[in-house]
């Protein structure tokens, strides 16, 4: 984590990895990342392209905190990544970041992923961050929610 950004909320951690289609790395695939702003209306968008090995990397996105009249809210940031390859669009990442820290999606480790474009879209919750994704990364998911039975309201 770069020190100047330590106090700024991270909207999307630095992410890197390999994109495959039916197991083979895809080169020159276009990636588009769309991130909601934490304290204002609007989105931040950036793009990149995979290299000949299907590798891509995108930097962390931090919130540009504007002072004074910025509107407060609970940190809850929509995240999306689309891959465009051979005329098709693949939604490989669609989630909500609920923790401000960088790499909270991977419990503090660098977020390094493998994404299979035709892979199953899976649900994962990590640190309350919720992601529906075609990517895999090495992380322990949150345990399932426990529902206590209704209580009698007489103590």
């Amino acid at each position, binding site marked *: 984590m770069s020190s100047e950004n330590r106090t700024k909320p991270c909207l999307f951690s630095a992410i890197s990895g390999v994109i495959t289609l039916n197991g083979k790395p895809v080169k020159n695939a276009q990636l588009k990342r769309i991130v*909601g702003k934490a304290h204002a209306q609007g989105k931040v968008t950036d793009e990149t392209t995979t290299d000949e090995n299907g590798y891509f990397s995108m930097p962390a996105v931090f919130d540009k905190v504007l002072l004074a009249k910025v509107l407060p809210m*609970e940190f*809850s940031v929509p995240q999306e990544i689309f891959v465009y390859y051979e005329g098709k669009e693949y939604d490989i990442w669609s*989630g909500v970041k*609920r923790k401000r820290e960088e790499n909270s999606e991977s419990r503090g480790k660098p977020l390094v992923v493998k994404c299979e474009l035709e892979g199953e879209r899976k649900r994962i919750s990590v640190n309350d961050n*919720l992601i529906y994704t075609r990517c895999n990364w090495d992380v322990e998911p949150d345990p399932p929610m426990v529902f*206590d039975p209704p*209580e009698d309201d007489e*103590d």
Partner: protein
Amino acid sequence: MPRISPRMSASLARDIYRLVDIPKLKDAVSELEYTYGSVMEINNSNTLKGKSGGPGFVKSRTGFGLCALGKGAYQGHGFIVLRGTKFLADWLTNLNVGVSRSCNGQSVHDGFNRAFCSMKPQIKPFVRALAANGVHSVHCIGHSLGGGLATLSAEYVKATTALTPNLYTFGAPRVGLRSFADTLSSNVGSTKIYRVYHQTDIVPCIPFWPFVHAPSILGDAYDYFQPSPGVFPGAKWHDMSLYVDTVGTQKWSALRNKRNRNNNSASVLNWLNREGPVSFSVTNLEWLDKAINYVLAKCLSFVGGTLTGAFSGTFTLMDQLAYILKKGVDLSSNLSGLVMALIRKIMKMLGMQKIIDKTDATAAFIRSIFQKLSHRISTYCQKALDNVLVNGQSV
């Protein structure tokens, strides 16, 4: 009526954020089924789009939420889980905040009321159909502004159905004036209002007096105050995830009555009459809030009037307050001592050195002191909110 556990209500208040912020509706539907499928009846995606009313997502410009029917262990339960938007700070720090009438005719914060009214058309069919759906227990849940909206939805359920809802809020701001809080406390019942708040969360401190929290009746007995370090507002103590951590797996009875001091009249008087400097802190603001309410109640009971939410352009709430306190000064020497102690305390908090006696306490002077106080609190809250944002935390 059965209630839900602290852990479950806190988890719902936390997870409503990601449920409504996930970019794709189909994922929101999947998430509902995945996480809540065992306890909630998840209907087809049409109802989730809110097209037919009834259970489903609620979306308006200023508020979002989920209306759902329980199943399994929660058969016969209805859930209204709400969250607010990004426009909280402006409302909370607005000096000229307006008051409008809630659905039950009580005086409430105009911003919150408008936000609730924008959602009401979508909540209404769900609430109307509660009886037809065999619902015997309704739970209104929310964090922050969502807690304010949950409070208004609880009032709405109570006013329009035969059911008495349970209300669960976490770090919620003050929604209405005394009359609203009292009416809600007696209609819904103080025992059914679970207002959980951290000591150093700034949001429950605002808007400051004359806005008050429910439960206002038996408020000390049914108080879910949670200690948090320090006396100044700490940004992170408003985070819903911290409330989830605080609550843990504790029972409601264990979360209650955590204050290590008494909040009775004697301790309010003790604070009021204590000599020495008074710092401008969350703790002292809370005392001051209690002291104002205490002194005002004494004056009102003597004068035999009530504080109303009906202000004209020329006779504001501030005028009413000054008028009532002035009456107290004029009519009874006991009251006069109380009012003077209150004014001196406020002046100390404001750093005013001037020594005053009874003859200085004109209505105009009292009014000016309260105006200064109001301005100082607003600045303090704005600064706390700014600090929150500078530190990369949010409210």
